[in-house]
């Protein structure tokens, strides 16, 4: 069989790839332009090396503080998700207890409900606890998730039965089996869930926007939105902020993309 030609695919994919990355390149270029340069007609496609936009955006909003907030929230939410989801997933996949099927169905039903239905009562809970404008308000609801439980359960289900049986004969209790034997074996699942959670937590906008209105307590997403209100069409400043805000997750993705993409493909095949 002759090798199929690949150049037509390259032509189309390259054209598409340019459309995908042009806005990113353009954003970085404008983040290094002066304000008048950024408003020129026709557009100026080269940077004017205005590095001062970056310190300027840090002076105008507590961007450094928001960066730290976002890191703390993302780390806490991801760690919480991994622990709580894997515990529940292990129980659903490997232990037998009355009501298991029914409880799992309730978990699954939660996946169908749009997030907006949770927001008002959660806001009232946070208000009642005096947690408005705190990082706990962003972390507490985030560590619980039916999706992660469902995802990890699929991984636990693939492990052979003999594993628990052998461990039980050796006198291990379920907690030990979960922690010492099973958890290391579902590492790919934990990695996929972890990366997805980092991505969602880092980027989420609606809930942080509602619950933390004090700029000092905002995450980067909400911070960018408030920056928009402050600077309107000062795009060099807005883009300097955007670059700082989005770069960490882009960098993480470039290093961990195989695991993230495998995780997403997996959700598709099991959905």
């Amino acid at each position: 069989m002759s090798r199929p030609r690949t150049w037509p695919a390259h032509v189309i994919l390259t054209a598409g790839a340019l459309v995908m990355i042009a806005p990113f390149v353009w954003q970085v270029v404008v983040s290094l332009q002066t304000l008048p340069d950024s408003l020129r007609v026709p557009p100026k496609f080269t940077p004017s090396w205005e590095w001062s936009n970056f310190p300027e955006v840090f002076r105008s909003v507590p961007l450094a503080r928001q960066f730290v907030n976002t890191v703390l929230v993302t780390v806490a939410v991801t760690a919480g998700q991994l622990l709580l989801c894997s515990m529940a997933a292990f129980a659903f996949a490997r232990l037998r207890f009355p009501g298991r099927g029914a409880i799992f169905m309730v978990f699954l039903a939660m996946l169908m409900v749009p997030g907006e239905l949770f927001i008002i009562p959660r806001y009232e809970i946070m208000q009642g606890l005096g947690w408005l404008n705190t990082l706990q308000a962003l972390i507490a609801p985030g560590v619980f998730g039916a999706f992660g439980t469902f995802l990890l359960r699929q991984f636990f289900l693939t492990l052979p039965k003999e594993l628990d049986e052998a461990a039980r004969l050796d006198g291990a209790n379920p907690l030990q089996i979960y922690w010492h034997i099973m958890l290391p074996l579902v590492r790919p699942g934990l990695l996929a869930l972890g990366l997805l959670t980092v991505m969602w937590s880092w980027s989420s906008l609606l809930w942080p926007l509602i619950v933390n209105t004090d700029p000092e307590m905002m995450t980067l997403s909400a911070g960018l939105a408030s920056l928009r209100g402050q600077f309107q069409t000062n795009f060099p400043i807005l883009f300097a902020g955007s670059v700082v805000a989005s770069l960490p997750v882009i960098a993480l993705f470039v290093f961990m993309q195989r695991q993230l993409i495998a995780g997403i493909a997996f959700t598709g095949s099991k959905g």
Partner: protein
Amino acid sequence: MLSKREWVWGYLLIAPMALGLAVFYLWPIAQTLYLSFTESGVFGGHTWVGTANFTDLLGDEEMLGALGNTVLYAVLVLAGVPVAIVVAALLNVPGLRGMSVYRTLYFLPVVTMPAAIGLTWRYLFNGDFGAINYLLGKLGIDGPYWVGDPDFAIYAIAIVGVWSSVGYNAVLFLAGLQGIPRQYYEAASMDGAGRLRQFFRITLPLLTPTTFFVIVITMINALQVFDLVYLMIDTTSPALNGSRTIVYLFFEKGFVQNQRGLAAAIAVVLLGLILVLTAVQFRLQKRWVHYE
């Protein structure tokens, strides 16, 4: 005896998650349903108003506008799904070099925070100095004021919606494509079928389970669009009338105007819309999805 201890461990291990889901998911659902039948007072608290919120919404121009905008947005974004199929099919061409480089580039918008994406495209779509109207001008087209024009705003947002989800959907399609046995293609080329014919006769039909999944997920996400609208359209812009979505209206009513009961009713309508449209999708799938 052993199995009784297994019960206890089972309950202990699901307890934290079950408790959290009860507090932050189950109870809020019940509470939102309840609130949708109430009106919030100026000094907090709420009074029962029956179905008044829902009848108000039915006659409310903003709500009907938001419903229309949201459905139009969902249709536009769904129309972009074939782009992802084409990208995935091209990435799956045997012997293609640099596949993972392409995949990375197409995936970049997926991992970028929507707030940053929204700001970037607001600039690109600017009517006066935006790059898109500049390029259209080169082609002799006088571009509209996109994000400032109620007739064009939702199209601009949908273009960004498609652009930022192509990579995600292409990854799902690629996984689907890789599940199609190579022998089918080998048999088809021995019968003299060209690559285009193979694509329509083998690839598309065998990909339908993935296509169905992508369509349902894309639709559900599109019906909940908020971030892009919030970042691309100014809060005081007249374009908002042509681009205000259901979740945007929920946000405005609930947390700008503090009409929590009405906002709860909007959320309930959204739930109903999603459930009905998803059920329709599942009914329709029998007609076009091939399961082996």
